[in-house]
């Protein structure tokens, strides 16, 4: 089927997310203005105006009432999803790299950049306590040692947070005590993205070392590796099939020729179990920064350095395809 092109951002896309039902797509970009779209026809529903810097990260809570965005302007903003009104603006000392709602939506996790001599911090706010949000006072703030957090994901029951780091480590932080519970290093370069399976028992990491890897969420045991020959910026697990989609491509600054062939800006589909690639989808003319399956598994959305978001619905033969066993 012909892909739907979401045009509206003026600069590269940093993150794309569906809400739980999958009727809406939320997108953030370096152009400061996050947008919300209908996933069915690609019509823009509205935008969240107020940031003064690139928006690195965004999240929507489970009942699609609130939107959280983290920006390089040293703020993390909470919005009313429906009206687009800014409810709170949490101020941080450095840029906000990641932000997300917990499973219940009651806790907000925010991680900040390590710049200007200030350390990277992992902060937690109680979403039901206006005091904390208004005064930017988290109930827990964990100073992150070593390399900074580049991506973060909530564990299934708000008990811990899994973080991906600039030099390839993955850690598990206890969200009650602030202690680091686990640390592994399976990647040799920066981890760009972490996404959970539908039931959050598995997570897939995407790394600049040109691989994506599958881990057990609770133990961080390494299960599978998906190899490409380019940076992997994002990876997502299908909610209905044993598939994983990888997005990436040669970094814009490394591209020497204008050919998109050399950049390999394709979305690549792998068998979750056999680690074999079975399909590629072309279309972007810059590296894919973020890719995510629709919650019903029948389509996926990808956002790229070229500023476009593409929503692809799968053809029937995608559902017919099975590996020979």
């Amino acid at each position, binding site marked *: 089927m012909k892909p739907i092109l979401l045009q509206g951002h003026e600069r590269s896309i940093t993150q794309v997310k569906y809400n*739980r*039902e*999958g*009727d809406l797509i939320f997108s953030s970009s370096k152009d400061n203005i996050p947008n919300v779209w*209908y996933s*069915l*026809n690609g*019509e823009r529903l509205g935008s969240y105006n107020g940031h003064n810097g690139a928006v690195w990260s965004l999240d929507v809570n*489970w*009942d699609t009432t609130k939107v959280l965005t983290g920006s390089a302007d040293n703020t993390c903003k909470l919005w009313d999803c429906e009206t687009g009104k800014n409810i709170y603006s949490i101020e941080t000392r450095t840029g906000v790299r990641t932000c997300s709602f917990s*499973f*219940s*939506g009651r806790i907000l996790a925010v991680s900040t950049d390590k710049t200007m001599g200030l350390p990277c911090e992992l902060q937690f706010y109680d979403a039901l306590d206006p005091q904390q949000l208004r005064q930017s006072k988290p109930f827990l703030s964990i100073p992150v040692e070593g390399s900074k957090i580049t991506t973060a994901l909530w564990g*299934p*029951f*708000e008990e811990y947070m899994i973080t991906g780091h600039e030099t390839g480590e993955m850690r598990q932080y206890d969200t009650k005590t602030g202690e680091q519970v686990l640390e592994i290093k399976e990647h040799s370069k920066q981890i760009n993205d972490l996404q959970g399976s539908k*039931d959050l*028992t*598995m997570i897939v990491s995407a790394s600049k070392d040109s691989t994506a890897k599958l881990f*057990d969420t609770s133990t961080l045991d390494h*299960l599978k590796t998906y190899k490409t*020959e380019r940076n992997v910026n994002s990876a997502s697990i299908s909610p209905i099939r*044993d598939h994983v989609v990888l997005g990436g491509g*040669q970094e814009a600054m*490394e591209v*020497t020729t204008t050919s998109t*062939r*050399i950049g390999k800006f394709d979305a690549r589909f792998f068998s*979750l*179990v*056999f680690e074999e690639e079975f399909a590629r989808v072309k279309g972007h003319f810059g590296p894919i920064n973020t890719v995510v399956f629709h*919650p*019903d598994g029948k389509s996926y959305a990808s956002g790229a350095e070229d500023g476009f978001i593409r929503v692809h619905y799968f053809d029937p033969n995608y559902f017919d395809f099975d*590996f*020979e*066993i």
Partner: protein
Amino acid sequence: MAAGKVDSDGRKSNRSESQNEHDPDQYEEEEPDFSDPDGFVDDVDDEELLPDLLRSKPKESDGIDSVVIVDNVPQVGPERLEKLKNVVSKIFSKFGKIKSDFYPVDENNVSKGYCFVEFTSPVHAQEAMKTADGYKLDKQHTFAVNLFSDFEKYSAVPDEIDPPEPRPYKDPGNLLYWLQNKECVDMYSCIFEGGEKTAIYSNTTEPTVVQERARWTETYVRWSPNGTYLATLHAKGIALWGGPEFSQIMRFSHPGVQLIDFSPCERYLVTFSPVQEPRDEGDAIIIWDIRTGLKKRGFMCENQSTWPIFKWNVDGKYFARMGTDQISVYETPSFGLLEKKSIKIQGVRDFTWSPTDNMIAYWTSEHKNSPARVVLIEIPSRKELCVRNLFNVADCKMHWQKAGDYLCVKVDRYFKAKKTEETDQIKYSGIHYNFELFRVREKLIPVDKVETKDQVMAFAWEPNGSRFAFIHSDSPKINVTVYKMKPDGKVDLLKTLEKRVANHLFWSPTGQFLVLAGLRSMNGVLEFIDTTDMTTMNQTEHFMATDVEWDPTGRYVVSAVSWWGHKVDNAYWIWSFQGNLLTKQPLERFCQLLWRPRPPTLLSEKKLKEIKKNVKKYSQQFDSEDSQKRKTASKELLEKRQQLLTEFEDYRQQKLEEYNRTRDIRIEMRDGVDTDDIDSHEENFEEETIEFLLKVEEIIVEE
């Protein structure tokens, strides 16, 4: 010593000065006291105080290096000594300024027949020793010049010699073991990780590592012509490896070695290094005996020319190099000049050995009124076998067919030549090309001619057949033409393939099959051609490929993207000779792949014919073996998948049970709403109407 004393006194005076600083009046009125207080002991020694000065203090041995001893100087009386001194210093002042000389005389004031000459620098003395040694002053007197510093060395030579112990024989194992592989699997070397790692692989369905080593070579590797040895290059020299374990067979020390070349017989190794110690200037190029590891002869490298400078004949009996207006042929094992003289050839531009016979082909450029010539001569008789005169020649390129049956000389000819005033270079206009085709095996060596107007980009003979192919461009169109040599002076055009993307062509080592490749700037387009009927078997591409290599048996072709030429997607792909992709092997910063060559077949001509006749019978057997292998391979893959799936399903089962057990917690966390399924609380959904633009139609309403 004295200087040191003064200085240390001065320092002490400073010290006393600072003591007095608090009392300016006293300072002005009284002379500062420079003398040491009573009982002062100087505890600063010179070494500590002025190490720099002491270092430059002259030593007794200084200057010895600048002195040479000259023997065989005429013995003269005092009246003629002055004259002799003049003569000698005139000779030696060529090498540098003479600081002093000394002529020892006997009791009768007659000079003793030797003298000492001191130069201002050891470099000059070195120069004098090298050049003036053996200088003929007159019939009776030939100078023998030695460094004074060497004198002791030579005088202390012991009378008895210890004969060197014979080195015990080290069995390197069977160096040809890899040829005994039943399935005739070939090997290749790979350099990857930007040169950090080198590995030897066997070309099985999935490459099998034979040997992998980190930092095996510092630049690149070379196989010897028959594949017996692998040569690695290092800053200090060359190492040769071989045998089943790739153990070190031999080492050759040649600092800064850059280029190497084997003789076709694998007996000799030629190495070249641009880095030279001033003392062994004659060793820019060294020829080694591979089996003994001994240096056979060193050569100077005066003029920059293309490697290999020394070209070997087929059996390693002769090697030759070109100089100005001459070709020097040397013989082995004496390593002397053949018949003690070079072959004088006015204006020789290039030469090449026949790959199978003791025959040299060379060409000379036009000179005054004499035409350019292509000549075939026999070695060692130097008999001219064939001479071809050519006019209006800009350049020639000689290509031997590998079996030595044919020689093609590609001649670039011009209509007009103009000498540009400023640069003194000749500008040619209206260049056209022709191929002079020498039938070397036929009587009197007849020559055929094929012409083309287009620029020729590449030319290659079928290695053991009578076909040749070349790429020519009538820009922007690039075409490929194949000809076949027929008996009785006929050269048949087989076909011209028009509008191809190619800049290189590669014949299979066994002939018949041809790969056209558009490498580097042409994005790696590949075309596989069967020249028996000139059909294209496959047209494909390996994007950005930089290299193409046939395996030595002509069964496989490798295309590669080398890190040396292109920084991303470094990999090599193996194709069948028909152009079917067999495997893709990406390797981190892969640099170079080289097939291990095979020695020529030991089968007789008759036996080969017999095999060719019964090829059907053999191929049946091979086909069944192949299909068996494929079956096991796909079976293995399916089994592997099966196993992976079972394992994964077990894991998932366990996780799902856990997930289902915790359902209540999740519902509680989300305010009593079950969100495990996407439409599990459909009653809360709100209907929304979304408009789609299906099509735009323009209807003109009738009035």
